[in-house]
């Protein structure tokens, strides 16, 4: 991976490349790298970062910028995001918030593409009153604005409202970041921005199949902080949500909470809202706690927001800070559920700890697997938990290390472990997945909590298990669907996402049932297909896109085709008068062209062995015959004995078979050695 720093004008400076092993987390100290690159032109400036890399897939790399100034309270964690070529018309949507009169803010716009972006930058007050200006952003350029100044200049008032940056071309090249800081109390906050794609459909983003678009924030810190955050005793947070309608139509929103403290968890309904066009509403969660909607001693809540709108027509930002703004935490809203999340860095040392969570956003119980990777990705620590709907798996990484908690295999994390990466997997749901996730890293010196996001995995190519699938007549053969994971570049079985949609092109030749079982009706060839929506690896989200895998179907009468060993009964060394060798008794099986047992008894199996040019043991063949049993099996004694043993030599024979004097098309390769005999590699 080669990090490239771009100045605001887009000019680039490459830093030293780093190689990252599978599941490894590598840190690049930008200050040190700039010094090493002797790039003094970068000092005291700003711009964007690009990461150029070669990997098996674009999803193989996860990256985040962690802006820390050691010895100061302010910290930002910024997830990297690539350019999306297929996102043309759309906008970035955000919320501005000025919590006091002294906080500074930056709205940063970056053009990742090669074409100039013509942008409309609109600001809204809480009621939806709008002020718009034009912004041109050249290729790879970065611009930064102060929303405080823009609001003052536009005549808008209030302490919060909306931001929209829209364009009619190359919307996927625009990235934006909005953050606040106030050096006096040591305050910093990131106000997450969202892509709004007017072409996005509910079906693409309704991961739990509820018919309603849903946003979740997994880790809202409530009024009474978790002791694990190590905030000063007596600190009271003021959790609040900002919810914004990004459209010109009225939208409704419904809130609910799943809270937890050190001993209990529970659910609580929240308020229902009607949001006017472009309106931004503040929800005082602290007041809900004070009013008894949520328990006063609850430490955390996951927030679920449902709407009658389409994806990203409603956005939300959460913030929980004390009155001084010195101590606080945030949690990002996202609609994404996934079968697999690949996380970035967690930290645990004298100054930091990390809490990571995954929740079940689906409607049925699911089995969640959590893995910590460490030692350059070579070691792993695994936990599993069954999660009811809305239930969360809650992992305090520091506690696992400090208290030496064994994983599901009894493994312990090294006591001196300080960082690594992580992963969540949904073991129950394939193709779509029901897990949402969250992570916070908190600084126990300054009481600052920064969140980070993991990367959802999606599927590329979808293919039938077999193409063509061979089906014996009058017999059912299971077929399914495999899909190529964008994160692992391996094929996963996603068949359940394609149930109830299988169809045969010619039911007079083959039929297909709900699960993909193909049954041969008449000898011949046809095709079959199914369809289903599974997570797809777009640059910025993993939407559910329709896939239609198809393949050929060949229906045939089963005929004996090959002999394969299906079990080894015994094997060992033998001695004969002129030497020594090896004997191996196997259960051989006569199989048809579909790889199934040709289960008929009394078929006479006879073979001929032909040794080829590789005959270092100087063997001559000796064969016999045997009848099959009702399973198509028989016990076969393979053996060699020669004066050439002991040695490392080998003799290779082709073993051709007849069944009831008729030839089989498949010949086995038998490798005879002094200490082993293998048949077709078995």
């Amino acid at each position, binding site marked *: 991976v080669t990090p490239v720093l771009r100045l605001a004008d887009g000019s680039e400076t490459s830093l030293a490349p780093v190689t990252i092993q599978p599941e490894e987390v590598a840190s690049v100290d930008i200050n040190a790298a700039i010094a090493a690159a002797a790039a003094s032109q970068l000092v005291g400036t700003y711009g964007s970062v690009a990461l150029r890399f070669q990997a098996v897939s674009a999803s193989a790399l996860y990256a985040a910028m962690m802006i820390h100034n050691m010895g100061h309270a302010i910290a930002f964690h910024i997830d990297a995001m690539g350019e999306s070529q297929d996102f043309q018309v759309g906008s970035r949507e955000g919320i501005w918030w000025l919590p006091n009169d002294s906080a500074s803010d930056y709205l940063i716009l970056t053009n990742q593409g090669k074409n100039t972006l013509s942008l409309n930058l609109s600001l809204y007050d809480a009621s939806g009153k709008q002020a718009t200006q034009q912004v041109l952003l050249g290729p790879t350029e970065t611009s930064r604005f102060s929303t405080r100044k823009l609001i003052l200049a536009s005549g808008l008032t209030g302490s919060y409202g909306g931001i929209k940056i829209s364009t009619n071309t190359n919307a996927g090249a625009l990235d934006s970041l909005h953050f606040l800081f106030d050096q006096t109390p040591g305050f910093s906050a990131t106000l997450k921005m969202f892509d709004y794609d007017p072409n996005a459909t509910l079906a693409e983003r309704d991961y739990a199949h509820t018919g309603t678009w849903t946003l979740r924030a997994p880790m809202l810190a409530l009024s009474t902080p978790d002791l694990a955050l190590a905030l000063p005793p007596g600190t009271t947070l003021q959790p609040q949500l900002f919810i914004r309608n990004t459209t010109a139509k009225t939208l409704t929103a419904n809130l609910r909470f799943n809270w937890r403290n050190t001993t209990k968890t529970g659910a609580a309904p929240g308020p229902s809202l009607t949001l006017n066009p472009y309106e931004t509403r503040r929800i005082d969660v602290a007041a809900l706690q004070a009013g008894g909607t949520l328990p006063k001693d609850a430490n955390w809540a996951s927030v679920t927001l449902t709407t009658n709108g389409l994806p990203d027509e409603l956005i939300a930002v959460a913030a929980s800070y004390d009155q001084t703004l010195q101590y606080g935490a945030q949690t990002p809203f996202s609609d994404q559920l996934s079968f697999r999340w690949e996380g970035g860095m967690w930290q645990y040392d004298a100054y930091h700890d990390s809490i990571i969570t995954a929740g079940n956003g689906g409607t049925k119980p699911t089995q969640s697997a959590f893995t910590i990777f460490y030692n350059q990705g070579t070691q792993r620590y695994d936990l599993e938990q069954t999660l009811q709907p809305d239930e969360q798996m809650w992992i305090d990484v520091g506690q696992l290390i400090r208290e030496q908690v064994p994983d599901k295999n009894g493994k312990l994390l090294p006591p001196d472990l300080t960082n690594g990466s992580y992963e969540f997997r949904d073991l129950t749901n394939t193709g779509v997945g029901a897990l949402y996730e969250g992570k916070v890293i908190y600084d126990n010196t300054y009481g600052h909590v920064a969140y980070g996001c993991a990367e959802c995995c999606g599927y590329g190519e979808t293919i039938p298990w077999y193409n063509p699938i061979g089906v014996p007549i009058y017999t059912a053969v299971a077929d399914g669907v495999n899909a190529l994971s964008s994160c692992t570049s391996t094929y996963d079985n996603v068949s359940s996402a394609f149930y109830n949609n299988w169809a045969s092109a010619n039911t007079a030749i083959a039929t297909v049932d709900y699960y993909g079982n193909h049954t041969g009706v008449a000898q011949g060839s046809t095709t079959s297909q199914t369809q289903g929506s599974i997570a797809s690896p777009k640059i910025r989200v993993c939407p559910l896109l329709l896939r239609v895998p198809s393949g050929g179907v060949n229906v045939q009468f089963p005929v004996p085709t090959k002999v394969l060993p299906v079990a080894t*009964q*015994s094997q060992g060394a*033998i*001695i*004969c*008068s*002129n*030497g020594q*060798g090896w*004997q191996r*008794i196997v259960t051989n099986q006569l199989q048809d062209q579909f790889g199934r047992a040709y289960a008929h*008894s*009394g*078929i*006479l199996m*006879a*073979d001929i*062995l032909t*040794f080829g040019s590789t005959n270092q*043991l*100087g*063997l*001559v*063949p*000796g*064969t*016999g*015959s*045997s*009848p*099959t*049993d009702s399973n198509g099996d*028989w*016990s*076969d*004694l*393979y*053996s*060699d*004995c*020669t*004066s*050439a*043993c002991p040695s490392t030599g080998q*003799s290779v*024979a082709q*073993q051709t078979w007849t069944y009831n*004097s008729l030839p089989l098309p498949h010949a086995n390769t*038998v490798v*005879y050695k002094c200490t082993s005999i293998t048949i077709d590699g078995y």
Partner: protein
Amino acid sequence: MRPFLLVCWFLATQLSANATCNTSPDLSASVAAFRVQQASRIEALLRFGDENGLCFGIEEVDAALLTELADFDVKNSTVQATIKSILGPGHPITTEKHHGVIEVRPRSRRATSRNILDFVISKWEANRGELQLVSWLLRIQLATELNPQIKGFGGDARAGDTGDEVGPFNERNVPVRYLLDKIVAQSRGGSSWIVQVNWEELHDFTLFQNRSAWTIVEYEGQKANYAGLLNGIAAGLNQKTNADDKHPPGAAR
């Protein structure tokens, strides 16, 4: 009375299930009844041996003996007479007992020259092992003595009952037939050896450098399905061997 009869029936069943070769078979012993339906003559002989703890060495077979089905119903006879009845008047035989095995030979062949079963193995040693493996070791010993230039053998053969172990053997100057007798006599459930080449081929020693002259059939009780195996032997009898192609390099002719 009833308990006594039950015990007797149990013992008889147990003896039958664990039948081994009678080390001193009495050919004049009485046979109250023997009945088999739709079996070849060789299969009937194997079932007779299985039921009565008799092991056979069958020195000549033909396709008819191996495959033609008939019903057999013998009552109040002797072992010797039952064997002759099973093989039928078309196959007159003589019988000899060696090492607890009843060797069955065609009467008309007695005067002919010696065959491969008469070949004397000068020295044969084999560790205790599965019966079919020991049979294979004897086979390669025979081939090696027929052609000392053969370095070794590799092959596959029917494994049979992998729990049926015999040996060890350490024999000097013993004909093949008697070594086969000794092997089957030790079979835990009883067995018989059967030649699997026709009579003429049995006298062509060069064939047996890479081909087995016999097969050993282990008794498997009532559930046994010998027909498949015997059909295989019959099929082998019909395949004319191209001896020229099969002779290993340097083989004696």
